[in-house]
């Protein structure tokens, strides 16, 4: 065990995997000379040289397409997008090629590709660069979508992503890069599709992932002070989605609140809530509540940005709503 930041957990894992397997190569804008916009790749150009750590032109469509080709031919590229908003430029490559090559080839060709970078809002990057795009990618068969919430999860999920044979949408969070936490040493890996009960409780289930996990845990603390014991389920991965853990929790608590940072319509929370209704309808004592970001382009002004993302009081209110309390 060592205490690492979320950023260093990612960087350490990249180093370990590059040392282990020469097929692992890095690509992205400003990841080499500049050491990475969020310094996840600091010093890696010096360590591995320009054939394994490649600074790319500002052309997401081009370099993600190139990475798909490299993956098809046996390399294991890990591509950094400066934020996930820029990946929209490469949506055709991701949705129409990365997600479909194995299907089109009748299983003959894998695409062991990881695309990673920060997703979400909270650091005043305004409307175009503060989006949470997990629902977009989670919608597409052929992609895997994970969202680590802690340094340990950053390490464990990144290792599984790099060693797997599928294209992985690896959603980091800019507000979490500096977060510290205990990280297991060595070959520690976390399987996809396995949620974690981050806090136990009997009165209501809060489902969250990525940064919202920490907001949910704070909310659970505040609820505990009022005698309400909320259970918090940390999804870790959205596709595959571990509904078994969620449903088992809801069967005990009879109430569910699903939290997401993104806009409400057609979001991850809607998918999760619908699955809860499908699998635990007769166990529910109240409608599933959703806590989501405001349905607006993200404001730049700090005060308005704060109003547009979920906070613990929103979750506290939603949990009380499911308990018919005010």
């Amino acid at each position, binding site marked *: 065990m060592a205490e690492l930041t979320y950023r260093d957990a990612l960087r350490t894992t990249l180093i370990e995997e590059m040392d282990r397997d020469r097929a692992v190569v890095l690509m992205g804008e400003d990841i080499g000379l500049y050491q990475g916009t969020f310094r996840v790749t600091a010093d890696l150009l010096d360590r591995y040289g320009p054939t394994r750590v490649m600074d790319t032109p500002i052309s997401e469509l081009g370099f993600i397409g190139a990475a798909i080709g490299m993956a098809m031919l046996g390399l294991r590229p890990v591509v950094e997008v400066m934020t996930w908003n820029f990946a929209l430029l490469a949506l055709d490559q991701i949705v129409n090629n990365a997600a479909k090559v194995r299907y089109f080839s009748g299983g003959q060709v894998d695409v062991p590709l990881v695309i990673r970078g920060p997703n979400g809002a909270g650091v005043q990057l305004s409307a175009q660069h503060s989006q949470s795009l997990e629902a977009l990618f989670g919608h597409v068969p052929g992609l895997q979508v994970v969202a680590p919430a802690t340094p340990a999860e950053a390490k464990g999920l990144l290792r599984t992503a790099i060693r797997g044979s599928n294209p992985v949408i690896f959603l980091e969070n800019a507000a979490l890069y500096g977060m510290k936490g205990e990280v297991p040493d060595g070959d520690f890996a976390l399987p996809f599709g396995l949620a974690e009960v981050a806090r136990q409780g009997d009165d209501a289930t809060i489902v969250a992932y990525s940064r919202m996990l920490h907001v949910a845990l704070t909310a659970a603390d505040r609820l505990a002070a009022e005698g309400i014991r909320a259970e918090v389920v940390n999804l870790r991965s959205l596709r595959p989605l571990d509904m078994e853990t969620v449903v088992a929790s809801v069967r005990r608590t009879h109430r569910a609140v699903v939290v997401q940072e993104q806009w409400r319509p057609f979001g991850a929370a809607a998918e999760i809530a619908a699955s809860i209704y499908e699998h635990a*309808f007769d166990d529910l*004592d*109240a409608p599933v509540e959703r806590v989501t970001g405001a349905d607006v382009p993200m404001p730049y002004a700090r005060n308005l940005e704060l109003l547009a993302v979920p906070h613990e009081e929103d979750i506290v209110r939603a949990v009380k709503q499911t308990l018919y309390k005010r």
Partner: protein
Amino acid sequence: MADVIMPKMGDAMTEGKVLTWRKQVGDPVKTGEPIAEIETDKVNVDIEAEDSGTLLEIVVPAGQSAAVGARIAVIGAPGAKTERPAAAPPASAARPAAHAQAPPPPAPRAAQTAPADAARVKASPLARRLAEEHGLDLARIPGSGPEGRITKEDVESALAARPAASIAPGAAPGDGGPEYTDETPSRMRTTIARRMVESKQQVPHFYITAEVAMDEALRARQQLNAARDDGRKVTVNDLIVRAVALSLRRFPNLNGAYVDGKIRRFRRINIALAIALPDGLIAPVLRDCDRKPVAQISDETKALAERARAGHLRPQDYEGGTFTISNLGMFDFVESFIAIVNPPHAGILAVGAAQMRPVVRGGQLTAATVMKVTISADHRVTDGAEAAQFIGEVKRMLENPFLLFAPDAA
């Protein structure tokens, strides 16, 4: 297009209440599939679809009652129109008994939809499930959630309040407030009320109590249970059922009824066993108890009691009894009690607890386990001397329990 009608489950049934619809309007249904649960005078039963198609219309919403033979839903081809002229109830309602309470002609459809929606009880799915499990009527539970939605907590408070609506301790209700509450009894309670009044008014009861020494029977039971390798246990009640059944063979008047000026003697010995339920009691029937070994009586009694408590008895489970046993022996302080004859039976045996008592045997004072049994009998069918002999036979059987296992020796 086919009507789903309120079925007649048992001769005494004139109307039934729809508890829940298992299918909603628009759902496909198959012949034989349960589509609704109804509450009759005695039990809750599933109605099965007699046709395949789509459930087009629910005429009687959950929580409402309808006369036997009344149309409660319509099954037909998807999208078919269910409107029809106000008509006489379907032919199957034309039995005289049901006719008296034939349903009013169906109102035009538009007028019917609104009250049907208004009558829908809002409850959380969990509350719905809990209420069903405990046999509570959602329509009678006040809801504390938004728009009166019934929640788990509401069902739990209703459950807690259920046993006999106990009087709150503490201060007496203040002056000016109501002095009592009036509650509409359950259908089962209503049936019990009607039948017991009938019995007490029309059946001339007489009563005979006898004391039975139970030491031998208890020992036999213990030995039998210790010897069985299947882990199942015979109860004292199973022995009593067997003793009563064998005794009834010798006293056919007690296994009879006074019906329309005639003495009816039943050819089978079917013992009805009174089983307490949260809001009443029911007496499911064990058939041919004189021809079944004790172990079989025991197994069947357990299964019947379980079904009765779950509210899942079928009409054939509680019809056709010829004699009733009511056993309060589980209350060890009940020495004896007197039961009301369960019409049309000629007799009912009330069984008290087996209690340790000082008794005199051969001029010596000694301790023994004794149990008091009291028969209530219909004087139109039998007399004191005969009933005394019958109860003497029950006593002889229980005091010589090997007779219960070798009836030919009796």
